[in-house]
């Protein structure tokens, strides 16, 4: 794991990793990847893929409207809002 890869992942994840931290982060992620490589070497032929550790299945909800309009309350939690809209920094030029 080199520094440029750390930079790319940090950008995608919107995380700030300072140059000072980069080396340590690279070492730690490198350790995790080694562990994954080790697991990859296990022979899993004939084993069902597992998507979730719990041995349970998803429960379904009836298609009913149970929520009410709480706009004013929820907009008040945002740093900025106007005319019923959340206001964010301009995302396109």
């Amino acid at each position, binding site marked *: 794991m080199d520094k440029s890869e750390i930079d790319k992942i940090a*950008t*995608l*994840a*919107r995380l700030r990793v300072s140059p000072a931290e980069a080396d340590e982060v690279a070492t730690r992620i490198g350790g995790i990847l080694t562990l994954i490589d080790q697991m990859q070497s296990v022979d899993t032929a004939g084993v069902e*893929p597992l*998507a*979730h550790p*719990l041995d*349970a*299945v*998803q*429960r*379904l*909800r*009836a*298609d*009913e*409207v*149970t*929520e009410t*309009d*709480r*706009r004013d309350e*929820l*907009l008040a939690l945002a740093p*900025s809002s*106007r*005319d*019923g*809209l*959340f*206001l*964010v*920094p*301009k*995302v*396109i030029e």
Partner: protein
Amino acid sequence: MEWETVIGLEVHVQLSTRSKLFSGTSTAFGAEPNTQANIYDLAMPGTLPVLNGEALRMAVRFGLAIGAEISRQSIFDRKNYFYPDLPKGYQTSQLDYPTVGRGSIVIPLDGGGEKRIGVTRAHMEEDAGKSLHEAFTDGSGIDLNRAGTPLLEIVSEPDLRSAKEAVAYLKKLHSIVRYLDISDGDMSQGSMRCDANVSIRPMGASEFGTRTEIKNINSFRFVEKAINFEARRQRELLEDGGEITQETRLYDSTRDETRPMRGKEVANDYRYFPEPDLLPVVIDDKLIEQIRTELPELPDARRQRFAAEYGLSPYDADVLTANREMADYFERVATACGDAKLAANWVSVELQALLNRENLEIADSPISTANLATLIQRIKDGTISGKIAKTVFEQLASGDAGVDEIIEQQGLRQVTDAGEIEKLIDQVIAENAPQAQQFRNGKQQVLGYLVGQAMKLSKGKANPAQVNQLLRDKLES
């Protein structure tokens, strides 16, 4: 060089559930901004998704309708990206285990015949919110009403070979989701959105060319125009010795061109992983069989039945089954009046023209099926002529009176009394002596003119066949 266009479509269909895919928030169209965005939709900490069972059943319904494999176990995944209208920072979607697997859709071809188009998969996912960049000058407004609305993304194989085929596929898809009642399919409201993957290759080549993806095309017409533009752009580029860049492009309908999307410097890397907040979704045989028995008759089956059962022409059967409401309307009229061919004519010609003129959907037809059936019966039993029927039809559309009421009140009943018709004929012969003489001298075609005069004199009410016969008898005697 001759080129072949290769197209695959990704179509997002908004499922018409009452509530969102993972929360009990309403999905009604047109609400005030953010009045349909609740704590789960806003990704408040501690909230958890619960899958809408009806959305799942709708996806299965679609899968069964296109003969697809239904996954006994489907898995939701997180597709990670950052954008202000995606509060969770990921879209919950399905990657490796979509609910609907491989199936196919049959489309009609322009020169006759059909073609089977492969559907690779259809997966369930949630929609994002809406960014309003023009609302304010100092920032972007975010409306999260749409966030979490259930979508079914239907991915086709690269089996389409022209813009026309792409439109035919899209129309068939539209018709299927409407028949299944799983979406209103309204492209103008965004209930059905289309991305097109387009590439070209020398005719006869087996390798695909580099493709571009055209995003968010929002009408059938634009699908055709966008693909035609893009294929032409690629051809000119290649013939000038250039290379196609694999990229995402936007179709601009006002300029009729596609252009690269801006601000995509970081290549998409969605870092998918299984959604830990949702368990595997298990669909058992019992549920699949139950949904199968509830499937309505689909457009292809209905078209074939209309042709076989009612003796309709392929064209009429096509027109009358394009949407379910139209097909239902026709069947009710045909059954009630007992004459399918007349019913097909009146529905596909007169009624269609009326609806187009008034800009109405068939569900809002001003003429009930019962009234149209009675009108057709009155033509059949000779009470009125086909021509007078059009007058009655117009009055049915504009008022509350029934068919018989209109006929009686306005004296539109067809004149079939031989004595009365003879009187009309005598008058016509007297007033058109030269023409009558021409006929007697052997000029057969004058008869049409004389019949016309008699019909005019009767204000269209005389029985044309009788007028014809009696006039001929009189002149030849």
